[in-house]
């Protein structure tokens, strides 16, 4: 899997319109630009531009079929966001193991 820059990821998700587009793709599955525009309240070129930013960040994938472009969400691109929590969780679980060992030794 290509490594996308976390910077691009955070910037892409900082915009509420892009978040909404991304969430719709996560929840409803693959959609055309036209279908996404229908619910977005902005013009099709504006939607396309936002989708371009999401694509650069690795958050969406485009698939061309005839004259239509279909977009789908790439949830794995969220890994850098999820990683911090996962990493710190594992760190503290291991520290708590050592803490329990210490507490047992303090009895002796």
């Amino acid at each position, binding site marked *: 899997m290509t490594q996308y820059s*976390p*910077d691009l990821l*955070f*910037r892409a*998700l*900082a*915009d*509420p319109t892009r*978040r909404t587009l991304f*969430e719709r793709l*996560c*929840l409803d599955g693959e959609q055309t630009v036209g279908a996404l525009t229908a619910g977005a309240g902005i013009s099709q070129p504006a939607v396309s531009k936002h989708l371009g930013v999401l694509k650069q960040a690795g958050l969406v994938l485009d698939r061309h079929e005839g004259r239509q472009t279909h977009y789908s969400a790439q*949830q794995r691109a*969220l890994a*850098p*966001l*999820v990683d*911090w*929590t996962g990493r*710190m*969780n594992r760190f*503290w*679980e291991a*520290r*708590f193991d*050592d*803490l*329990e*060992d*210490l*507490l047992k030794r*303090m009895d002796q």
Partner: protein
Amino acid sequence: MTDTDVRTVTVEREIPHPPEKLWRALTQPHLIEEWLMKNDFGLDLGHRFQLRGDWGNVDCEILDVDPGRTLSYTWNYAHDDPAYQLESVVTFTLEPTGAGTLLRMEQAGFRPDQKQAFGGAKGGWRIHLENLEKVVAKLD
């Protein structure tokens, strides 16, 4: 920093030892070293200390002390690579239970790169994360 604009990690464990004993392990430097890291910890409000690991030092400052119950300090980690930088607050809460103590560690923070990117959209970012976490949870 408020609790609405940060990311949080919570680890909870019931430990079969009384809170007084756990408090010593959390606040005495030679004991802290045995389960966490080498340190120059001190229990006074505002005391600055470092936790020293093989991979670098964590800069800390005591924010809150309620003996036997709550201990809170900053947990800031400077790194050349912004992806590893971290500004956060760690809070330990001890609650006596029948069998010992419920120990809760909550770490709340932003990485500086996240802060830069989201300075203007904190509320939305929080809601957004909650949504994303629901989505990600479904993936497992």
